[in-house]
């Protein structure tokens, strides 16, 4: 079974965000970047499928030169090969999905695995966009997965429960937290991954379909009324929830 895992590099959640000079993007200076947390589950799912069925795991990312770092992590975890599509624009979903679909058309994998969402722009868009471009089925937010004789059986998390879904290969899957516990790469593998080749591809010729007009930092409009734990204060808080906020 040949598996394509798509991952991305994102700003660390705890990093401070500053607005770039264009007023519509993040200033990357001084920002710590990490492997998108959901992509760890995607890589692990790819490796487990290879362990069960044989084949190869190819990991790809679409981003600037510096995002090769996340590919090195995937190689250290056990991915066979790694591919970067050079794209410094950081992000139009349609452009990124086009780059992935174009590569997938050449590679012809049996399954493409994503993390459920990337935590920078949280669009939840890529898995089903890529599936639509390829004419494949997709199963999103997968919390349990098995593939036997070309048939995918999976649970997909929805509001208030889960859907049980089947699909035939080739298929796109997006991994939910807890699908598998991601393995920690071992030190010798981390060292070896540093010298492994990373194939490079030119960006897709697709044009962005969404324009960022501006970006700003939200101003807190919270009331910040703080009380002690005295009975009088607790009753005052409940009165305010009832009469001022009108939420009870």
């Amino acid at each position, binding site marked *: 079974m040949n598996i394509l895992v798509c991952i991305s590099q994102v700003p660390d959640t705890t990093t401070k965000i500053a607005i770039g000079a264009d007023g519509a993007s993040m200033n990357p200076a001084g920002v710590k970047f990490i492997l998108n947390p*959901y992509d760890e589950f995607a890589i692990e799912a790819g490796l487990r499928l290879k362990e069960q069925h044989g084949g190869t795991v190819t990991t790809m990312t679409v981003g600037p030169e510096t995002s090769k770092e996340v590919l090195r992590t995937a190689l250290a975890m056990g991915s066979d090969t790694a591919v970067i599509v050079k794209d410094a624009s950081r992000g139009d979903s349609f452009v990124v999905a086009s780059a992935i679909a174009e590569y997938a058309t050449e590679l012809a994998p049996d399954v493409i695995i994503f993390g459920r969402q990337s935590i920078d*722009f949280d669009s939840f868009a890529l898995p089903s966009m890529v599936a639509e471009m390829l004419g494949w089925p997709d199963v999103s937010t997968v919390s349990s997965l098995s593939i036997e004789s070309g048939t995918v059986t999976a649970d997909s998390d929805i509001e208030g429960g889960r859907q049980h879904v089947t699909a035939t290969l080739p298929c796109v899957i997006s991994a939910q937290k807890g699908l598998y516990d991601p393995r920690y790469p071992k030190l010798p593998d981390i060292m070896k991954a540093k010298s492994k080749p990373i194939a490079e591809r030119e960006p897709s010729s697709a044009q962005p379909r969404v324009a960022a007009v501006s970006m700003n930092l939200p101003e807190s409009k919270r009331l910040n009324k703080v009380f002690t734990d005295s009975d009088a204060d607790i009753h005052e808080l409940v009165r305010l929830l009832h009469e001022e906020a009108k939420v009870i």
Partner: protein
Amino acid sequence: MSILVVLEPGSDGLKRTSYETVGAALSISGGAPVHGIAFGASNDQISSAGRYGLASCMSVTGPEWQSAPSAMIAAAIADAARSVGAATVLFAANAFGKAIAPRVAVRLEAGLLADCVELTSNGAGVQAVRPVFSGKARIHVSATTATTVATLRPNVFTAKATSESTVQIQAFTPTSHVGVRSAQVTGVSKNEGTMDVSEADIIVSGGRGLKGPEHFNLVEDLAKSLGAAVGASRAVVDAGWRPHREQVGQTGKTVSPTMYVACGISGAVQHLAGMSSSKIIVAVNKDKDAPIFTVADYGIVGDVFEVLPRLTSAISSVTGKN
């Protein structure tokens, strides 16, 4: 240029998020027609949207459309959008909308604006605001294409009740879905007996301050007094105290309830990312410097073990629930 809103049948009428989507469409329509489309909904369910100003809806029915897969539904929605000349297609940003909207955007060669919290129209097109980087920034976006597809964060947009209008319902028979390779839904398991945080109007969440799973009854009791769902921080889910479905935050669910009550939760950025768009935030924490207080409207500095039982009884005396 008209607007198409995608509606979902719910347990009583349509889902609340569907009425919100109708409300958002009317707020930007500038008088242009707003059409609905619903799959596997009864005429009674569709008619319930008349109260929120919907005047026209396409209805797709038949056995193959009961829990139809996303690829099939996306093809049908794109058909419908073309048939009414829709320049904008709106979904709720729930599991259904997130799975289908990207496919519809590809089919309509449209820009996708995902998880929007504000929507405006200036005549030239639709502009949206969406939180990015865990809610630490907001980005104003618009599509560069003739058609815009957008998903709207649940419980952020207002469904305004108007004088009861009659929804003109037309049966719609899509054609493009034939031959589309799709995943098949073979069944659904509901989390019995619990209200889902992503659909709740009020959420009471507990964190590490509860010191152990055996103390979550304090959170559950407060939730009962408010008719609220129970949520949890990542720390207590990772520790195995509570199930992952209750987790609010970056690797859990993003919620915007009318009121969010955080009990014994310090307020790490990962948690704030999932709840900072709540309308009213209440925090109970013994550490007065906990970051949760910076996003709270109302806070009590105190031990959850001391505060929660008294807060529960004070709230019960107002709500009559216990």
